[in-house]
């Protein structure tokens, strides 16, 4: 019975995916992609990965969708909609892609037995650290180096986005997020929602130690609240040269690296925690990371500087 529900879900997902690729209008394609992101987060629930479901809904559907929608608005007057090439090219590409799909499906249908799993290794690690959410244990203790590098990638990505500003605008404000004609409804939402949203963001970060949730999910909710206030025109984006902003961007990765280095003389090596302080250290790192993620995600949606810095 539940397999029927899964089958239906798969059909919905494939419909959204085909629509994403074949829609004539680029805005239709983006909307289909956002719908796909929400459907995928339901799939992650079915696969019992609640942390991933939250991340997919917040980042995969939400934040990515916002970036793509903004790009559509900027491209609308400038770039004509592209058309797919002729039928012969479509058939050739279709055959190639079908081949790739069939090969991948064969991998799925002939799985390795027994299925490889690192779950026992994580379980052994969990008692040392004292957290109850296995995914957080992997992110911040068992494979902390991966998470640290990923934070560095985020900062580098932001530097990459900023570097695309014309020389004249370096250090100025990004293009305004404000809606062209701010509506009363949006302003109302931007006044009512942020207190609740910030509370939920903090809750997700705090709760992430023992239950589904964590820095990414909480940080994204915080970023969304910030962006909502900007879109309603209740606040302005800061200049990208503002020192306070840059400190917020750096505080998470910097604290993570400092804790990692401290591991050399407080514990066994880089990024290893002394067992008796493991939990408070991890929670402190998570809080700093969530702040940095919120600011970085918000600034990435905002894009490079588009105005001259004020004197």
């Amino acid at each position, binding site marked *: 019975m539940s397999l029927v529900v899964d089958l239906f879900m798969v059909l919905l997902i494939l419909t959204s995916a085909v629509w994403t690729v074949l829609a004539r209008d680029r805005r239709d394609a983006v909307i289909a992609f956002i719908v796909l992101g929400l459907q995928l987060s339901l799939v992650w629930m079915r696969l019992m990965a609640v942390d991933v479901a939250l991340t997919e809904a917040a980042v995969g559907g939400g934040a990515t969708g916002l970036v793509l929608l903004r790009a559509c608005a900027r491209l609308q007057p400038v770039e004509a909609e592209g058309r797919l090439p002729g039928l012969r090219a479509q058939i050739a590409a279709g055959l190639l892609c079908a081949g790739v799909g069939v090969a991948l499906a064969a991998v799925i249908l002939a799985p390795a037995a027994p299925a490889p799993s690192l779950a026992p290794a994580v379980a052994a690690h969990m008692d040392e650290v004292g957290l109850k959410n296995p995914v957080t244990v992997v992110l911040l203790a068992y494979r902390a180096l991966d998470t640290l590098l990923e934070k560095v990638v985020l900062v580098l990505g932001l530097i990459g986005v900023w570097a695309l500003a014309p020389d004249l605008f370096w250090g100025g404000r990004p293009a305004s997020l404000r809606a062209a004609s701010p509506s009363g409804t949006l302003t109302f*939402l931007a006044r009512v929602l942020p207190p609740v949203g910030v509370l939920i963001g903090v809750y997700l970060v705090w709760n992430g130690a023992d239950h589904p949730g964590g820095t990414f999910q909480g940080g994204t909710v915080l970023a969304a609240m910030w962006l909502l206030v900007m879109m309603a025109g209740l606040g302005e984006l800061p200049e990208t040269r503002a020192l306070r902003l840059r400190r917020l961007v750096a505080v998470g990765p910097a604290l993570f690296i400092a804790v990692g280095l401290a591991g050399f003389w407080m514990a066994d090596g880089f990024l290893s925690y002394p067992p008796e302080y493991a939990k408070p250290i991890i929670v402190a790192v998570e809080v700093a990371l969530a702040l940095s993620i919120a600011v970085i995600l918000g600034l990435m949606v905002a894009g490079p500087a588009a105005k001259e810095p004020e004197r």
Partner: protein
Amino acid sequence: MSLLLDLFTIVAVSSGLFFFLAGTVGFLRFPDTLTRLHALTKADNLGLGLIVLGLLPRCPDLVSALKLVAIWALVQLGGATASQLIAEFARRGGGR
């Protein structure tokens, strides 16, 4: 007592699902943006409201019950605002 609660859950969740079904049919069949939005808000408000109501007796403690109600309230707020924004956009002649 528990039979009564079970019955309550079944009736409330089923009627919630009915509103979701009706909302979806309306969304697919109604002629223009505003009427389609109207159909969707029914699914959001009443459908989700009834499902949350039906699930309340199942909550192990007061906090999770409050969380369910908070989810319903937030969906109300989000849904109502999004409908307003889409309707404004449609009335200005956006979309098709």
